[in-house]
């Protein structure tokens, strides 16, 4: 396949940045999207240019490091996957592909397609945990039965990989799906109840302080989420927030 790539290039955080066109030949449909970028980079290096910087690590859809806004969608046109799992067979010979970084004020660009998502970490620092020290003599794991339903639902919320696709795709750059997933995981488990009120208050306050926008329930985040995190988690966070404040 031959492709035209329109890629966002930006030297560093202070650079203005712009879209740059690249042509790439010999793309195999079996390649992953990131492997296609590897080939492009090899080509750029051999031509004496600077390769396109992009985040990636595990390349099996679980670390959450890869990002990219491809043809107007977070993680590209396929569903239920991250960019590293997107394969070139989803595109046609002669296609033009737009590749942009995840955009949000809270996710400033570091270079090219690499963005700084540490805002997510800072939200987690404010309550994304259960306060239990490591001692080796906490209570036996089976002394606290948890209904399968609650455990499964908590697991579904906990599968969030923190990639930021929800923020990138939301027209408001809202982080509520991400925060809602963490709040939900603990809200669904008895272990999480003790600190529930403080958790949701503090995490929401940090989320706001980071400059994320407000949820307007468009539902785009749920569609683009590579792990299919449900909007229910946002509703649950709203309820938790309500409970904590009234």
């Amino acid at each position, binding site marked *: 396949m031959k492709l035209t790539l*329109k890629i966002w290039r930006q030297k560093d955080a202070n650079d203005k940045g712009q879209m740059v066109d690249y042509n790439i030949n010999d793309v195999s449909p079996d390649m992953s999207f990131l492997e296609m970028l590897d080939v492009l980079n090899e080509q750029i290096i051999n031509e004496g240019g600077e390769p396109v910087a992009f985040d990636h690590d595990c390349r099996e859809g679980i670390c959450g490091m890869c990002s990219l806004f491809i043809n107007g969608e977070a993680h590209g046109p396929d569903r239920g996957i991250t960019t590293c799992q997107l394969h070139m067979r989803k595109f046609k010979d002669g296609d033009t592909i737009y590749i*942009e970084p995840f*955009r949000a*004020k809270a996710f400033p660009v570091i270079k090219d397609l690499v963005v700084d998502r540490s805002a997510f970490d800072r939200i987690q620092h404010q309550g994304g945990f259960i306060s239990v020290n490591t001692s080796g003599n906490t209570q036996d794991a089976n002394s606290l039965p948890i209904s399968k339903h609650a455990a499964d639902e908590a697991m579904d919320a906990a599968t969030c990989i923190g990639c930021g696709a929800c923020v990138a795709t939301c027209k408001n750059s*809202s982080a509520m799906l991400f925060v809602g997933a963490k709040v939900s995981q603990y809200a669904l488990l008895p272990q999480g109840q003790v600190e529930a009120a403080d958790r949701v208050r503090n995490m929401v306050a940090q989320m706001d302080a980071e400059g994320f926008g*407000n949820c307007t329930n*468009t539902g785009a985040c749920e569609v683009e989420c590579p792990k299919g995190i449900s909007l229910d988690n946002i*509703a649950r966070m709203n309820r938790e927030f309500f409970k904590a404040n009234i």
Partner: protein
Amino acid sequence: MSGVLSSSIGRKVAMAASAFFLMFFLLQHFAINLTSIFSADVFNELSHFMGTNPAVQFALQPILIFGVVFHFVMGFVLEARNKAARSVKYVKNNGAANSTWVSRNMIYSGLAILAFIVLHFIDFWFPEINHKYIAMLPEDPNRYYGELVHKFHSPIRTGAYVAAFAFLALHLLHGFKSAFQSSGMSAKRAAKLETISKIYAIGIPVGFIIIALFHHFNQ
């Protein structure tokens, strides 16, 4: 409770609460207007009650005005914040792939409704306030129907009225569900609301439009 309204979720819930109030108001407004098709007397009677009852005039009316103003102001504040949350726009953004047009354009349907409300105030509310509290004209319990019919004389005004309610339908198509979701209703329950949501969002505006057209063509 302090600071809740400055938090994103607090604002979202407040937005939903004002929306619920406005949707309820809309329903009763519609019910009263509907009577104008069937009986001028009933319409006059109800309008007279609403227009002169002190509880409605001095308690509910200020609340309503506050609700309208709050919903709009908060809508603008949130929109401004949300716009600011992405300083550099995407070159290519395929929003249609993951969300509905109405959900992404609430601000525009909202603005159209705002424009209509301004018109509506000029048409009905200002003359009404002038009539009752400024010019202090004597109350005629049978004037309302005639005034209503008179307003729908102009095809331009009727057209604007129809267009505004089309925008209201768009606004409600997303807004109705969204308000429930914001106030914490789970998606499973919200799915059951889908039908009610559509009936309300389309039924009420279409109803208003029918009333307008009825009076326009029945002059």
